[in-house]
């Protein structure tokens, strides 16, 4: 007997069909993985079960939870279910908690609401739950506020809220997507334990096939609101009967074809970072006192050859983005020097930096946030041209933009579009076009594919590889995703607490990590091959 049974569910918002003939079931103690790319209707499925859909949404079909017809239930019945029998964990832990209430209040609130327990009883249960999710009272008293916690800790609080009343079903919508791999592994372990402890059903929603494979007993693959394939995880993924399943699996393991990797050959290095340190002033503890400085980057040295592709990997907060900002001369080191093509760039004025700026560009993580929505593609891509010595004419500018668009696989017709008219993948191509228009020697890419769906991500990785070969651009990839590092870089630098603690050929470091930090990164990274192999053993 299934705990949750979704039959023939269809969902429309306005005139848009979101879900069509959706089928899914979860039994007690079972982990059901729901996989699909963005816009496939995964989150809407979850919100339908919770009946927290936007006002304009219309649902048809049947959703039965524990014998209750969810679509026909009254709002009071749903309020009684939510938080008590069904818990939900959301994607973005940084914003999922109310900033003005303590974590104790927020965990205890649902307990008090559903059980009519007294404040003291509810707080005691909240305390136990927080202990259970790994937030012990010594460091995390109930009186802590969300802003005093890190992303991973906040996600534990959200899980504590969702599981406080031992729900029969937990819905986790991309619970680890915003976290680094080590935190991801910890949160997934916690979810697995909670399922085992109380035979809770878990509906795990993710775009990451490897994560779902590691976790789920059964898997449902969703595409544009329709179920493509469903079944036991091991069989579904090993047989890959459906072409879309195969496509997803291949895309998530995609390695671009690259010619012989370039090493640090003889000749002048492109980039030299020597003994660079960056301190930030500590938090003011009173009017006259400050905490000691925070060392974000600690005595880092590295060197890159022209055309080389290097990965800078590490957990969130390890200092990799600060280092990148200093290389791009967007931030000044507290000490140490950075040389680009032999010229020192530290301590130079903006005017003196102009030639260097021309030769280094940047690609950011979020293709949605990094464009002014009111400007057209032509102006957006032409932005870096102001660093040229001679201002191009209007016709030249258009010609250069068209050429850059062509190089990243966008068409002539896109030049007069606005960013919102482009898809996520096209927008990331746009930011690459913007980066290469000045013919730079170095592109710094900060998590350039982590916001993208697997199939688009494979295409963008191909594009990076192609531009590396064709234009000889060197890359510094900043990422916590080791599959990206493995796919596209020659060398890897592992950063931990501001220091580079391990470096070498990418394949060597990732296959045989030496330092503890590198080992834990490698161990925590989800790997589809490994996950399928393990599932095969378990499920026969």
């Amino acid at each position, binding site marked *: 007997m299934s705990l949750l049974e979704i039959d023939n569910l269809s969902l429309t918002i306005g005139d848009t069909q979101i879900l069509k003939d959706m089928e899914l079931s979860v039994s007690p103690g079972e982990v059901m993985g729901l996989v699909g790319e963005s816009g496939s209707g995964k989150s809407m499925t979850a919100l339908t079960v919770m009946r*927290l859909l936007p006002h304009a949404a219309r649902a048809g079909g049947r959703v039965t939870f524990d014998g209750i017809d969810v679509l026909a239930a009254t709002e009071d019945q749903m309020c009684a279910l939510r*938080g008590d029998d069904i818990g939900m964990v959301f994607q973005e832990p940084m914003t999922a908690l*109310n900033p*003005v209430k303590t974590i104790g209040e*927020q965990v205890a*609130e649902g307990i008090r*609401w559903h059980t009519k327990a007294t404040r003291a009883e509810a707080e005691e249960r909240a305390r136990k739950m927080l202990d259970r999710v790994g937030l012990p009272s010594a460091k995390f008293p109930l009186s802590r506020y969300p802003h005093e916690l890190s992303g991973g800790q906040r996600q534990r609080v959200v899980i504590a809220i969702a599981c406080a009343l031992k729900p029969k079903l937990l819905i986790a919508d991309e619970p680890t997507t915003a976290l680094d791999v080590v935190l991801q592994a910890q949160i997934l372990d916690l979810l697995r334990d909670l399922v085992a402890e109380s035979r809770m059903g878990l509906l795990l929603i993710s775009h990451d096939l490897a994560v779902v494979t590691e976790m789920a007993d059964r898997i449902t693959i969703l595409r544009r609101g329709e179920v493509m394939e469903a079944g036991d995880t091991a069989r579904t993924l090993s047989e890959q009967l459906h072409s879309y399943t195969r496509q997803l699996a291949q895309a998530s393991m995609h390695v671009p074809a690259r010619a012989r990797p370039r090493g640090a050959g003889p000749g002048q290095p492109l980039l030299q970072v020597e003994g660079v340190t960056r301190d930030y002033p500590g938090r003011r503890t009173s009017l006259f006192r400050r905490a000691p400085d925070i060392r974000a980057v600690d005595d880092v040295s590295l060197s890159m050859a022209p055309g080389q592709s290097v990965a800078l990997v590490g957990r969130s907060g390890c200092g990799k983005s600060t280092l990148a900002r200093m290389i791009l001369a967007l931030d000044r080191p507290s000490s140490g020097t950075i040389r680009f093509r032999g010229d020192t760039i530290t301590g130079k004025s903006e005017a003196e930096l102009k030639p260097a700026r021309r030769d280094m560009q940047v690609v950011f993580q979020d293709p949605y946030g990094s464009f002014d929505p009111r400007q057209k593609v032509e102006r957006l891509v032409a932005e870096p041209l102001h660093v040229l010595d001679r201002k191009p004419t209007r016709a030249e500018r258009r010609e250069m933009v068209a050429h850059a668009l062509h190089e990243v696989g966008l068409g002539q017709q896109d030049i007069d579009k606005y960013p919102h008219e482009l898809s996520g993948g096209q927008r990331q191509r746009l930011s690459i076009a913007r980066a290469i228009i000045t013919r730079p020697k170095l592109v710094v890419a900060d998590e350039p594919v982590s916001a993208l769906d697997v199939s688009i991500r494979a295409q963008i990785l191909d594009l990076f590889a192609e531009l590396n070969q064709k234009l000889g651009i060197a890359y510094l990839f900043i990422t916590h995703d080791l599959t990206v590092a493995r796919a596209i870089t020659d060398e890897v630098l592992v950063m931990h607490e501001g220091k580079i603690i391990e470096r070498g050929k990418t394949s060597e470091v990732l296959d045989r990590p030496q330092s503890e930090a590198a080992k834990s990164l490698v161990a925590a990274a989800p790997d589809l091959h490994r996950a399928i192999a393990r599932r095969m053993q378990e499920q026969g």
Partner: protein
Amino acid sequence: MTAYLLKRLAIAIATLVLASIVVFAVLEVLPGDPARLMLGMNASADQVELLRNQMGLDAPLAWRYLHWASGLLSLDFGRSYTYSVPVIDLVRERLAVSLPLALIALALSTIIAIPIGLFSASRRGRVGDMVAMGAAQLGVAVPNFWFALMLIYVFAVWLHLVPAGGFPGWAAGAWPALKSLLLPAVALALPQAAILARVTRSALIEVLNEDYIRTARAKGLPYRAVLWRHALRNAMIPVLTILGLQFAFLLAGTIIIENVFYLPGLGRLVFQAITQRDLIVVESVVMLLVAAVIAVNLVVDLSYAVVDPRLRTRQ
């Protein structure tokens, strides 16, 4: 928290000192000798010189500033040129009208605006919201003196519930005094409430789109409980900012309403002092208002910290 408090306090004091220097300097620069003004055009140069000496006007500038500023601290504002009574007495008398009026108006405005804002935000785009916001639009657009006249017509002339104007003084008893402040307070409060309701609504709508509202709903709280427990407090910061600004306005900017209702308030005192070139009164009232605005801003800043724990522990 202590650091935040001390910092705000230090800023408030610095602002006050700066403002006092500016007010003093402006009146120094203005043409016209107070001693000559007091004695009239026919006085001899010797008489003027004598009075200047008596008033301390011939002392060095810095010394006079310090003298004046220390006077302010002990609530000695000097004597009015036209009435020849201590300025503090004039001000005290007027504040007894203006301060209660401002407080009542502010309370009314808050009591009207917050529920309307909550109502509108929770029914965004529906009929109730449109009616409420239409009324608010009207409240902002209609001038308060016209509204005051309508109130007088209905409640004083027609229904005889309250006096049409004037102020009997607190000596006449609390209730008659309050009764005469009621209509002016309503006239002042309604446009303010209209603005505040719109601010509350838009702040709430923004908050209601936040992820933590969904988290609260997923706990099983009904919509109404989420609105009161989670949304309202997070929407308070812009509301408090507007409230602070409104209080400052209500204290000083009520001259039109005071005139409509024949109230002896602070606004009319300043207006008369300006027309009579009674600069010492102007100077004193301006300083008083500056101090009041700074004090209100300090209170608003501190209430931010009460509402939002992130402001208490800056990270």
